[in-house]
């Protein structure tokens, strides 16, 4: 069998991620695709801790830890510095969580994308402020419990559509991926590496402590997110050309995904029905954008 994933490991053992952390795997795959010729900056997020306390570091590439809202702006600066020094072939990676991307860092990100700075921005999305102990972010999906959206007042707003925001900037390349599909993710990072300008990749990264799920279910949940169409994997080129990398004709019912996570345990049947409806509607909209005429039917059982 031919291995399609590079063997070189740039994330070492001994990192501080929780059991079943999707974010640790995301970094491992991303660096396999990018290789050693990469500089990364990481704002406040789980990875500020995962990397390991001083003097240890679990990354074998140069890393600049930075303030919460500066992933994109520091990456822009790294690129400018490298350009000024004539080192143009180095990959510049901004690596941030959903809080640092969807919320506090969105201004700096929008600025970098508008300038089309030549950086790769990857958001590993665990759908809440997990590093501070599970508070809601604008990436938290409708219906979820967090410590700031308690069961009686669970989150009533939909998840912010970051890829749509990026596409509206006419970013050269934006894509979603899921940690259950490493080949897809690595292929996208490799593609991003070859494109000049800003690239934004949004990868869903299950978090067992925050999702109240089993560590061994991380990959299963990341796959279910795709097969239920809750988190479709697709890419957008120049803000216009939509390609769905995995078209789901018969989505699994959302309850299969929601039911495995304690954060949705309080949802009533009608809430789940509402989520199901919204998911299918969003997916139909996406299919339309990708010019795919497909009738979709939920696959029960």
């Amino acid at each position: 069998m031919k291995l399609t994933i590079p063997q070189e490991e740039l994330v070492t053992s001994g990192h501080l991620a929780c059991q079943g952390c999707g974010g640790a795997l995301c970094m491992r795959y991303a660096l396999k695709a990018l290789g050693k010729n990469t500089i990364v900056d990481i704002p406040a997020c789980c990875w500020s801790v995962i990397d390991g306390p001083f003097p240890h570091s679990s990354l074998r590439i140069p890393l600049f830890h930075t303030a919460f809202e500066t992933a994109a702006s520091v990456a822009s600066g790294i690129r400018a510095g490298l350009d000024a020094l004539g080192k143009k072939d180095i990959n510049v990676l901004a690596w941030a969580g959903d809080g640092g991307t969807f919320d506090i860092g969105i201004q700096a990100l929008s600025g970098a994308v508008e300038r089309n700075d030549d950086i790769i921005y990857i958001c590993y999305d665990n759908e809440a402020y997990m590093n501070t102990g599970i508070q809601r972010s604008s990436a938290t999906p409708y219906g979820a419990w967090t410590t700031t959206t308690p069961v009686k007042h669970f989150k009533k707003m939909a998840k912010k559509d970051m890829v749509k925001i990026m596409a509206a900037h006419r970013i050269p390349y934006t894509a979603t991926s899921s940690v259950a599909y490493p080949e897809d993710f690595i292929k996208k990072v490799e593609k991003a590496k070859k494109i000049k300008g800003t690239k934004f990749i949004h990868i869903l990264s299950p978090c067992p402590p925050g999702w109240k799920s089993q560590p061994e279910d991380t990959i299963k949940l990341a796959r279910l997110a795709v097969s239920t169409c809750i988190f479709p994997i697709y890419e957008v080129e120049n803000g216009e050309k939509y390609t769905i990398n995995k078209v789901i004709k018969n989505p699994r019912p959302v309850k299969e995904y929601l039911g495995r996570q304690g954060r949705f345990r309080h949802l009533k049947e009608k809430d789940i029905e509402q989520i199901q409806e919204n998911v299918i509607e969003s997916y139909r909209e996406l299919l339309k954008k990708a010019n795919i005429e497909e009738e979709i039917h939920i696959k029960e059982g």
Partner: protein
Amino acid sequence: MKQVIMGNHALSYGAMLSRVQVIAAYPITPQTQVVELLSEICADKRLDAEFVKVESEHSALAASMGASAVGARVFTATSSQGLALMHEIIHWTVGARLPIVLGNINRAMGPPWSIWTEQNDSLSERDTGCIQFYAQNNQEVLDTVIQAFKVSERVFLPSMVILDAFVLSHTSELVDVPEQKLVDEYLPPFAPKYKLDVNEPHTFGGLTGPDGYYELRYKINEAMEEAKEVIKETGKEFGEKFGREYGLVEAYRMDDAETVLVTSATIASTARVAIDELRKEGKKVGLLRVRVFRPFPSEEIRELLSGRKKVALIDRNISFGHGGIFAQEIKSALYNYKDTPPIWGYIIGLGGRDVTVNDIKGIINDTIESDKPEKDIIWKGVRL
């Protein structure tokens, strides 16, 4: 070559002559001409630099950090609200030990909206670990940018070169713009030992527990202490090369002065005229200008003030509920030492209100005529 230029352009030329490699900046009144001229200078290739036109001051300094961390020489400039927005990243720049030079135009903080000069913006950054130079004229603005890079790159701390809004920023003065060749001889290229380097990967700023953090703060203070000597040394070297010497403080007609006026920035230029006039009247008065606020030149100040009869301090800033900030600093530098004079702390010129020769003469005469300071804060010219 002598040129008539505004203070803002003195900052731009200082950055150009220092051969900065990356500029990241965001416009704010009264700083705009700094970045406008630098944009032109970069566009017509007088300077080979990357200019990142960011969407905020916060990003300006964050991008500056990224560029500095890979080993580029970086300049940025801002003012007032913009500096306040950068505050978090000033701390980060210091902790990351990045020698960025930042031009700041002193402008009052809102509300109410004001675009005129006052020092509260930069003095609010007192405890970040950023070196602070207060310039008194446009020549000093340009010269200090060049020196600031030399100092910062020796001690690995950022520097702020500060000038008064409008009084300097938009006022044209005759400035000797040095030859590039001489500046190159004075300021070698930036070559940091540690940087973000794919051939020698290191992690910067990783989580550090109480067993390590404390020592890192000690090191920052040690660097600040070292900066005092480095500023004096580089200021002297600058004098040898360009004929204009600089130090931490400047003493004017101090030899036999009984009453000393202490102040900073452009008020010091005006004060010189006031001192001359009072001297003509036979009054034994002198002026002490504080050029560098961080690191604070405590030893020099003690040496120059101990044994004097009286000290009048003029602050164009206020720490609400306590008093003028230079006054506080100088009082604390003198405490625990012998022969310290009483200090009258005057607040004047907030929000850009004009400070005239007569205002300053009035302050000095009030001090001479008064037996002791009645209050911690003396408001000069407040109209209620």
